[in-house]
């Protein structure tokens, strides 16, 4: 694929970061999360505020360079890419809908410079059974959130009943911590909130339009780019391994089933990549389609990579099994697949499709 100049530039810097800074920390990330030092470097490079405007300390990346950044980082460390996607698409983006609000702008600045990360309380949208969420009760913000990613964030974003945004800076306590299938660099647990008025702010409101669901939907292309990176990371390792590893006297790549599977997976990924980068930033249908195609492709590519690696790939030190875990984790944390399929069916076949 031919990329424009800005994207190429971002790509080159991102590759350097991935190789020099992310790759050496890979084992550490899997064990104990993304190191603060790495996040500081990411902030320096403008990645934490990638989509924020420059006057708020951001890098003001356009859609394609931003996707290229996520793709590149995901192919080294899906956790790091997911974290940056979270800060940008799910935290900064909704906050930018409330420009002019001092609190919102301060929050964006803190994310961009790495002094204060945020998270969006979108977890209820990931479930087939809706429940939970925060409600106002006697001035306090009260409720439980079943799935919270990155619970150590400095602030939490939620939806107020009048269409505004709630910025929550305290009163949350962690409950169940979940087995971490993947994205181990980012925490995942359930939380309960009982936040007094001093620790939350209501921003905007009565505007309509903004919602957690719409924020998650408009992150489709960022999630798709992350999935693409995972798939490419898994596949490129398999391609390399197939060129080196011999069995029964020949390199793996010489065996038709291995070669055909790797080549066709490569073709599929190239095809989906063309679609993703060619899609219009505002087209919900294409973004959703790309996300559904690519999260599935990531699961299949990582499985193929595991199989090509045989027993070796089964152990974490080969750096392959993490793609297998992270691909599925991304699919689970990137949106409820049933809901997404219904949404896509509605866009493609008309309202009310896929309802039975």
């Amino acid at each position, binding site marked *: 694929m031919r990329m424009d100049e800005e994207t190429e530039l971002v790509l080159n810097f991102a590759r350097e970061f991935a190789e020099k800074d992310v790759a050496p920390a890979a084992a550490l990330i899997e064990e104990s999360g993304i190191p603060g030092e790495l996040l500081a470097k990411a902030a320096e490079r403008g990645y934490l505020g990638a989509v924020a405007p420059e006057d708020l300390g951001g890098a003001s990346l356009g859609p394609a360079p931003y996707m290229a950044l996520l793709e590149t980082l995901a192919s080294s460390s899906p956790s790091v890419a997911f974290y940056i996607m979270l800060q940008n698409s799910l935290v900064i983006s909704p906050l930018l809908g409330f420009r002019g609000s001092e609190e919102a702008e301060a929050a964006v600045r803190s994310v961009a410079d790495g002094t204060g990360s945020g998270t969006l309380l979108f977890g209820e949208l990931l479930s087939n059974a809706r429940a939970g969420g925060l409600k106002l009760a006697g001035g306090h913000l009260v409720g439980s959130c079943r799935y919270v990613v990155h619970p150590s964030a400095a602030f939490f974003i939620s939806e107020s009943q009048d269409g505004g945004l709630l910025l929550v800076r305290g009163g949350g306590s962690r409950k169940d911590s979940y087995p971490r299938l993947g994205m181990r660099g980012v925490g995942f647990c359930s939380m309960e909130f009982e936040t007094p008025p001093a620790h939350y702010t209501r921003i905007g409101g009565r505007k309509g339009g903004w919602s957690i669901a719409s924020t998650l939907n408009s992150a489709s292309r960022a999630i798709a780019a992350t999935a693409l990176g995972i798939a490419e990371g898994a596949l490129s390792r398999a391609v390399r391994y197939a060129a080196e590893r011999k069995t029964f006297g020949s390199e793996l790549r010489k065996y038709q089933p291995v070669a055909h599977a790797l080549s066709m997976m490569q073709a599929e990924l190239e095809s989906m990549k063309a679609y993703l980068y060619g899609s219009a930033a505002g087209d919900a249908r294409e973004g959703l389609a790309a996300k559904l195609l690519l999260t599935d492709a990531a699961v299949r590519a990582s499985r193929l990579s595991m199989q090509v690696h045989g027993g070796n790939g089964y152990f974490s030190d080969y750096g392959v099994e993490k793609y297998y*875990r992270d691909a599925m984790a991304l699919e689970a944390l990137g949106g409820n697949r049933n809901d997404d399929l219904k949404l896509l069916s509605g866009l493609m076949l008309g309202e009310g499709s896929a309802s039975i």
Partner: protein
Amino acid sequence: MDFDLPEDVVAMKKKAAEFAAREFTAAAAAEHDEGEKYPDEIRRKAFREGFLDMGNPWGMLVAMEEFCRVDPGLGLSAIVPAFGSEILMLFGSDFQKKKYLEPVMHGEKMSGFAVTDSGAGSDVAGISAALTRNEDGSYLLNGQKIFITNGGIADHFYLLARSSPPPPEKRHRGLTMVVVESAMEGFRATQLKGKLGMRATNTAELTFSNVRIPAENVIGEEGKAFYYVMTFFNISRIYVAAQALGIAQGALDRLTSYLAALRASGSAAADGEAAQFLVAEVASRIDAARLLTYRAASYLFKFTPDPVATSMAKYYAAETATYAVTRILEFMGADGVTTDMERFYRDAKIMEIWEGTSEVEKLIVARMLKEKGEGK
């Protein structure tokens, strides 16, 4: 034709299911997975309740299935202590049976099967561990083995090594199997950590530095061991198929419980056709895999093993396990990765790799069908 298990096997299956439900608690499963710790206590209990009984292979098979259905890591661990010992039953000398097989059968010792080395993988004949003969008739063993189940906990291993260079184009000759004790001088085991799944089982790399193997520890005939290994795979692959079946069925159990809970909560997703198709497609594949597995087992246990039936069962059941966990976890999404379904997802993948990758199984099926005149 009769497609149902006989009553005594059904009873054993029920007993195994009850044992697993009782012993493989959520806490135990999580703990051994997280810590990569072999559950020795569970092994002992399973032995006491008679699940490790090579005289009752059907019983072992259905216990394997039911155990893995509740938890694959603990389930396999409970039945694996005698791993490889069929080799001695079939090819061992009286001396070897008395010294090595009996204590295993009495639950006093554990065995392991050591074939794979790091350069060879599926290519059994490509191994490099070597036996050289001493003047007194004993051997010196040098080399290494990798991915050895029970590697860090077994008392002895049935080990394959090259004892003479192969004739050209006959790479399968010159391989010999011996019993190696972990207590022997020059033997070293290093547990391999960081497995994707099946983390309650113990996996190690073994290295051998001038380990002296007495002549009486040679199993069967020197140079003929490739055949013994293939014979063993015809047994072990059926047990892997049963593990895979258990994993797939366990995943389906979890899906149906999940759907019931969704239904109770009033969620429309519970009875959408997507959910119904998922149940039907997974259940059909599981039934197909189970029939293939039981067919292969019934041939083997009547002493008429059919390698085509065996490899079909192993390959198809393994694929079914991965298929089931993947599709079910995709459907459950966040509701799945926050439960033990995530462990099933991790545990399933190895089914397509160990005891013969799916690729190797397919080649066996194709080659043997060709030899049989395409099965006509």
